[in-house]
């Protein structure tokens, strides 16, 4: 698809992710998707901004809230829906589901439901890239909750010590499930990351596709030349509950005004004209992918014990 300008391209990609996840919300009550989903709604701009300048050969190590990254990297939408339906045609043949999407063909290196657990994988892949002289940038994506974990700190230390070509991307939505950063952390995330000797950056406007792109693309450009590790924290906002498809503002663990303020600036809500311009095309593509998933076969008994070892 051709776009008039970069903004429209980024907008289109973000809108596509939002509409895909809204389709999941619509489908969820039918119980056709029988698995936990951690939706990225509110955080799409971060994924799109981060992935925009990456090449297919670059690798990204995401987490369980990973739909947006799979899609932003160009993952196959039919295989995506088939996977969350648990079908044999899914990107993991029905064995991974929403939390464990995998796409080696797009450098999407497998998602994990254990917080912070893929951060060292990115560092290890960066070590391999350097030792094998591959022209690759490796991206580790994680949330603020991951920075609570010891393995996060171990990984930053190793990457900095060995000067590995990895960019750490912290999507800070201020929440680990229902617990705010202020009740978990004695440090400011990006300031603390600097302790490991990493160049650190901060982007406050995670709702703004252009701002995220502007903040991130120089890091990619620099990494291509220097092959050195870098760090960026991007502030974002999770609109829905931690897991599932509902809002849970009545639960009282965060203020509604905070989310409303974020939504007032969200281009995927306020840019009515652009939404109208693109949504028909996107919705048709989504329907097509959902039909593919619905019509796909289930995995069989013979699949149960394959790929164990």
């Amino acid at each position, binding site marked *: 698809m051709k776009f008039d300008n970069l903004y429209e391209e980024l907008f289109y990609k973000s809108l596509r992710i939002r509409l895909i996840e809204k389709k999941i919300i619509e489908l969820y009550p039918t119980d056709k998707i029988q698995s936990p989903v951690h939706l990225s709604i509110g955080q799409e701009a971060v994924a799109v901004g981060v992935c925009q300048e990456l090449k297919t050969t670059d690798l990204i*190590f995401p987490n369980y809230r990973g739909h947006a990254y799979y899609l932003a990297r160009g993952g196959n939408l039919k295989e995506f829906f088939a996977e969350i339906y648990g079908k044999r045609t899914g990107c993991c043949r029905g064995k991974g589901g929403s939390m464990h999407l995998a*796409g080696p063909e797009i450098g999407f290196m497998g998602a994990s439901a254990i917080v912070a657990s893929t951060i*060292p*994988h990115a560092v290890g892949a960066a070590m*391999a890239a350097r*030792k094998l002289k591959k022209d690759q940038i490796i991206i580790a994506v994680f949330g603020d909750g991951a920075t609570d974990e010891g393995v996060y700190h171990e990984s930053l230390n190793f990457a900095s010590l060995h000067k590995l070509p990895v960019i750490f991307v912290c999507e800070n939505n201020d929440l680990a499930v229902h617990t705010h950063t202020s009740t978990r952390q004695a440090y400011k995330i990006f300031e603390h990351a600097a302790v490991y000797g990493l160049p650190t950056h901060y982007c406050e406007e995670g709702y703004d596709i252009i701002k995220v792109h502007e903040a991130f693309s120089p890091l990619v450009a620099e990494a291509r030349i220097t092959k050195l590790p870098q760090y960026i924290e991007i502030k974002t906002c999770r609109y829905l509950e931690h897991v599932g498809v509902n809002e849970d503002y009545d639960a009282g663990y965060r203020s509604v005004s905070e989310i409303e303020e974020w939504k007032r600036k969200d281009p995927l809500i306020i840019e009515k004209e652009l939404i109208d311009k693109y949504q028909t095309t996107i919705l048709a593509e989504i329907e097509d992918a959902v039909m593919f998933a619905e019509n796909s076969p289930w995995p069989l008994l013979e699949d149960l014990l394959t790929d*164990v070892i």
Partner: protein
Amino acid sequence: MNSSTDNNGLMKRFSGNILSYRESLFHAMDDALSINPHVVIMGQGVADHKGLFGTTLNLSSKYGTDRVFETPLAEEAMAGIALGASLNGLYPINTHLRVDFALCCMNQIVNLIAKYKYMSGGRFECPMLIRMVIGRSWGQGAQHSQSLQSFFSHVPGLMVLMPSRADSILNDYPYIINSYRGPVISIEHRLLYDVKFNIEQDSEYSSDKPLSSHLIRKGNDITIVATSIMVLEALRAAQYLLKNAGIECEVIDLNCVSHPDKEMIMNSVNKTGKLIIADTSWQAYGVCAEVCRIVCENSPNSLKAPVMTLGMQPATCPTAKTLEDYFYPNLQTLTDAIARIVCGKANHGIPLPDEHSMSDVYKKFKGPF
């Protein structure tokens, strides 16, 4: 690696020689680095003046600190880094000076490494070798002595090996590193490091069956299934009982504890009707229990006597030598157990060997660890 890789190269090279367990590990590491440019060795102590008990000594100088390197004390990240490196083309060998330390990276081993292939529907593979060393004797105590093969073997997705001899290492390690496409955990035994072995190219260990069990002694009276250093004890007991009581023991070195040769075990038990299992760890929920499961599920009627199992006492490993001697099975307890089963009574009348502690036999081990 190309398909012409000859994984029997080490066995051929050292055939006819006497090699210690330590030397065989060193040659396996040296050989891996030499023939496979994607191999890296990473762990605490691999590039220091002791070189992981001599098994990686000076390899850092020979192949560069880029390929054999010290790591931070960050077991979880290192296991995860090994996984990421594997996904992007390296073959990592991650080492732990003691099995106990690997507990710090159980998250990566159990939640990620074991599952990466399956949860991606086979789209990712993570070939790697994780070496861990069991400590025993000379006051290893609670946290330097654990033998946790059952933890790892319990989880689908891992291949768990317990080499009992130098030839087992020479046979399996080249295959694992150069040809096998999954994660392997090899649990080595510190007390075996200085034990010397005759390397014979036509022995059971040089068979074309890597990652399997080995029938290493034939006999009609009883089957002994053993792991790691207990294989040596089983052979000593078998020899003693043949000489002193005419009892013929059949000995199976389980070797690949996660995927034992069930047919080999059943064939043997069907023949002898009597079974003793000698493992390096606790009996409950472990190798002893698993071998019993195999027999009970396949042919319970083959047993003519109750099974006996030997392992560590159900306590934390004590440090004091007197207690440690009670804690571990030894030649005397094993010999007594075999005699009881074969004779069908406790007062079998067969004189027992008077050696008590394994550390009395393997006197070379003087610590510190």
